[in-house]
């Protein structure tokens, strides 16, 4: 088990955004989290990555309790994420964006930078070449010198993935990576995610597009109104009466097709 979540709860004022959610994640799988709008999926990510403090419950990553850790510590331990509403570093170049991802995997500080030591230079070169690798992997290497804000939408989403990969995570959390993409882009994205799994990394993905979810998931968790209503393989989920009810009238057709 790479991740274990126990009774995780987040309350905003009076609103229970997620309530006593528990699940375990096997290493090396693609796990999808689905659920209608406002179900608490993004909030779950925020609590896992420390962006929001959880109200109750525990998160164990590689058997270590990371519940109240700061987000940067959690990233250092090996969880990376993307954001639902893109948060690239707008006025920096695409390459610089990905180089920042390497932050926690490098050491050199202020003094060696000022002196321009050999060690500093070497590390800097390494950061750059690794960043270029991740750009190539996500297919946006041609934009390396472009400002991130000038990238097309779909490529900004890829940039977020490249940047997250650059933190060298064991567990990657993707919040609606396919949203706003056209079918071809979505296909390419699915291939990309599968490749990440082939690297031995674990991926948790929030997605509304059922074709994507059913196509790539090894395991699916369904949230509704902050509660986990089902989990299982794609096949089990498709036939689960509770799930169908939760989606009734909305995405029923999608689900069953």
């Amino acid at each position, binding site marked *: 088990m790479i991740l274990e979540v126990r009774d995780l709860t987040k309350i905003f004022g009076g609103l229970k955004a997620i309530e006593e959610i528990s699940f375990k994640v096997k290493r090396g799988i693609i796990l999808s989290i689905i659920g209608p709008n406002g179900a608490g999926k993004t909030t779950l990510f925020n609590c896992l*990555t*420390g*962006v929001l403090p959880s109200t109750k419950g525990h998160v164990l990553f590689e058997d270590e309790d990371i519940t109240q850790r*700061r*987000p*940067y510590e959690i*990233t*250092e331990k090996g969880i*990376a*994420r993307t*954001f639902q509403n893109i*948060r*690239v*570093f*707008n*006025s*920096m*170049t695409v390459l*610089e964006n990905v*180089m*920042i*991802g390497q*932050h*926690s*995997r*490098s050491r*050199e*500080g*202020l003094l060696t*930078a*000022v002196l*321009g030591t050999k060690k*500093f230079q070497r*590390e*800097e070169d390494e*950061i750059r070449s690794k960043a270029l690798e991740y750009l190539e992997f996500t297919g946006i290497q041609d934009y390396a*010198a472009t*400002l991130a804000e000038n990238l097309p939408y779909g490529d900004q989403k890829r940039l977020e993935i490249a*940047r*997250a990969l650059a*933190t060298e995570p064991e567990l990657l959390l993707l919040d609606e990576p396919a949203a706003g993409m056209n079918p071809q882009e979505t296909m390419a994205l699915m291939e990309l995610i599968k490749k990440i799994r082939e690297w031995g990394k674990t991926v948790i993905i929030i997605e509304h597009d059922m074709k994507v979810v059913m196509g790539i998931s090894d395991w699916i968790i369904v949230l509704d109104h902050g509660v986990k209503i089902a989990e299982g393989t794609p096949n089990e989920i498709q036939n689960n009466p509770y799930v169908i009810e939760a989606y009734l009238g909305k995405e029923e057709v999608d689900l069953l097709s």
Partner: protein
Amino acid sequence: MKKVLFMFWCALLSMPFMGIKGGAYLFVGICVSYGVYVLLAHLFGKIKKPAIPVNTKLLSTAFIAFAFILPFLIKDYYTDVAILVCIYIILALGVNIVVGFSGLLHLGFAAFYGIGAYSNALLTTHFGLGFWSALPLTLLFTSMAGLLLAFPALRLKGDYLAIVTLGFGEIIRLVLNNWDSVTRGPNGISNIPSPFILGFEISNLMYYYYLVLGFVLIAAFIVKRVYHSRTGRAWLSIREDETAAEAMGINTRKYKFMALSFGAFWAGLAGALFASKMHFVSPESFSFMESVFVVCMIILGGLGSIPGVILGSLILVLLPEVLRDFQLYRMLALGVGLVLMMIFRPQGLIRKN
């Protein structure tokens, strides 16, 4: 027509203050300048600005060379101004680390400038240290002050941070003003000695100019190096998006601390140079307006850009000196300039890429 009416409205508003005649002049004045603006915009709007490929290396070499021969070309009075420009560049480089790189709008930087100046003044006059032996202590004090302020300030965001740093700046100024037994209050401290190099007193304007120019070059070199390093990137990412920066594994709190104390370090250096240049310090040199003035420099030049900082300091210090009659209207223009800048060119005169 609506625009003319609006101008008329503004003129009408000014009448209680400027009288009926003044208001009328103002109306004619803004109408004419607006007309000229429209005309010029019409004339130049069609000409596409050619993208001039600037060789930054060549340009900066030329600029430095020019800075070196400058004192031979100008009168003493202007050497004096040039020294002031240099001191402001160092100060602005420090502010730029905090405001420009890290995006923390700090409105109390004059406090660090003041702490630097007063440390130098007190260490040299009270304790009999020389400039050079006082300098490390001065820099230590100001960096520590930067760290100290960082504790409360870093829990706040955006405009709240701006107001708290402003309050901090004012408290320091009030302390300088009222702690008579140490700072001699509003009378200030005089007889601050000049620096010595190898037993040689740097009292002559030209020599002092070369001293501060040396410091400017060192400061610009170091800041540039840091900008292009892991630390610099971490600062920029905090400016761009703090949450995303944390998610990238950056300890944003630590880097804000670093930015504040590193920025304060340069302000301290600027303060020390200012004190030993003037041989006198008093609280009024470190007012809120001074903080705003420096922030204006980096906004004018372009937030985060090192050549921008230099350009901004040059313009804001030189302009009022060159246009002497303009002196009176300097602050008026600064105010209007800030508003126009925010509306029409928030990224500043120089912008990377």
